[in-house]
């Protein structure tokens, strides 16, 4: 049996090896650099999107509760709103009725207290229904919360500053944070009834 003998002696020379290694290294380096940049970009986008989501969520919560609040008060930088007890124990809406001074109330006229304040880096919404209080952090990375005690019979103004989630520079960057402002008209204020 005659074995097949490979007569070719093709191979890479040292120079070719070095060249290919160099090129390959360049390609790998660029791929790695691209991957790092891509990951960094995704992180930045994720941070931006999360921040924007937090900001919108906070504004929507505060605006919704201010609009339906019967009254508002500010103490120690805590915004406290009272809203009507609109739901019964089964979660159904109750019918409106008149108060003794011809205002509108729901049910027995009891109220629910909703408070907004900052704890550490979190922005918190606290809801007190009867003896039960539930507290939820609706935003994080909050650096400052200020509520202005303006005319609390007609409108509430507040501002919330969010720290940047993604920082590229080793030190403080050009943007210290993002501040959102909220000025909401108290449509349901009892003082105007």
């Amino acid at each position: 049996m005659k074995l097949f003998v490979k007569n070719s002696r093709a191979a890479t020379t040292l120079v070719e090896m070095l060249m290919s290694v160099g090129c390959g290294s360049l390609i790998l380096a660029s791929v790695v650099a691209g991957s790092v940049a891509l990951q960094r970009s995704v992180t930045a986008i994720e941070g931006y999107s999360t921040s924007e989501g937090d900001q919108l969520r906070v504004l929507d919560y505060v605006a919704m509760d201010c609009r339906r609040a019967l009254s508002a008060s500010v103490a120690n930088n805590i915004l406290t709103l009272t809203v009507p007890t609109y739901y019964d124990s089964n979660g159904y809406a109750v019918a409106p009725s008149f108060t003794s001074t011809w205002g509108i109330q729901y049910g027995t006229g009891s109220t629910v207290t909703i408070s907004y304040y900052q704890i550490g880096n979190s922005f918190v919404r606290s809801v007190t229904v009867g003896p039960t209080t539930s507290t939820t952090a609706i935003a994080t990375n909050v650096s400052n919360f200020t509520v202005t005690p303006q005319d609390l019979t007609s409108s509430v103004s507040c501002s919330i500053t969010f720290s940047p989630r993604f920082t590229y520079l080793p030190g403080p960057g050009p943007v210290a944070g993002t501040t959102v402002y909220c000025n909401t008209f108290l449509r349901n204020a009892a003082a105007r009834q």
Partner: protein
Amino acid sequence: MIALLTITIVTMLCATSLYVASQNYNSGMQTASWQGALTGAEGAVDEAIMALNTGSWTGWIKMGGTPPVGTCPDGANGDNGGSSANTYPDSNHYNYIVPPAVSLQGEGGNSVTSWVTVDTGGLPLDNNGNQWYRVRATGLVGAPGPPRVSNNKLDNNLRKIALRFARFTGNAITTPQASRTIEVVAQANGSSIWVHGLLMKDKIQMSGQAYIDSFDSTNPLKSTNGLYDPNKRQSHGDVATVNSDGSDLGNQYVWGNLAYSGTPAVKNTKNVQGTISTPFTATFPTVSDPIWSSGSYTTASLNSTRTITVTGTKSSPTLIKTPGDLNLAGQNILTFAPQDGNATYYATVWVPGQFQISGQAGIVQQQGVNLTIYVDNQIQMSGQSVTNGNNVASTLTIIGVGNNQNVQLSWQGNFIGVVEAPNDNVQISGQGNYSGAFIGYTMQLSGQAAVHYDEALNKSGGTSSVSYSFASWFEDNSDFKRGITY
């Protein structure tokens, strides 16, 4: 192999990046749709307020029972029964409408749809006899993108997005949608014509020791047993005219404001205790003879002592027309008495001639009777004149229908009522106290007469129209099945 592995890793990175970006885009679209839904709901509320204010219910549907919560009464096929609404809903019905969709641009859905219901909400009539209404409106905006929850649970707690099934009906939906529901209570605001103590189309002249101030018959801090108390005098006895030419207050005391238009300015205003302002405009009521169908009223002479038993209601008062003048002289007393003490009864008298009371004669309006008197010619009241047993000005209304007639009031006692004679010349003299308000063409207030404007008239009484405004506003953002209410 290494290249393959590298390519795989990079591909995974790209895919992850796209996935995250896609989620964030989806969340942004849902947020924009949720915010747009509120605009739709509020627009629908505006539609309801407009219908309540204008009384025009074109396009509205009347349904029986109470309105459903969170679902359109129109049904899935666009017609769930009912009939065309042509009036305000009563306690057993509600009206609803589905306004045309409004197109949107930008982020979120490209159109907003809505529906709104109006019912009484179980509310009784208020203290002015007006009905308030409950308005419920829902705005709906499609949320573009795949039916996928937000990547942040807190967003899902706040914004209720229906992805595959409608939140309240459970019916399958083809595209995700954001909905927001708000409930508004529309308050009935009676527009009283009695906002001033004296309201004239032309000159106002005061002399002698006449003055005007105010009180509030419904407030014990501003009255005593509903009557004027000089120790509780208020400063809302406002005087107003739209043509000040010839007006002279004679430096008499006006415990209130003066408002006027025209030239020259009102003279001798030194003792006006409130503000003096110009220009001034006002809408005067239009007065005319009542229109009564044959058989609906009684023709009777009221020129001698007699007692009229009043049995009419506010919507169907006792109607009496005199054949000519109503002239009470001597010691004749005309009494209007309620049929019983269980309710308030209403009577309207139409005098196509002159209305005169003199000597010791008078009209006694017993407690429980609301009396309105239309007079075509001049009015002259002196002597005992009219005794209002209710002690409330809004229960006695004298309407001068004539043009350029004289309305002369002069007596010693107390007049409690309102005089509505926008085309007549009103002259008040004597030593009497006049609690109520006056609308006329010109006014001469002299002698020791005192006008005490009853501030309670601003809330009721007189010919009034009703408009609606927001008394309460609440957004229903609950999802009780998930334990979310407020």
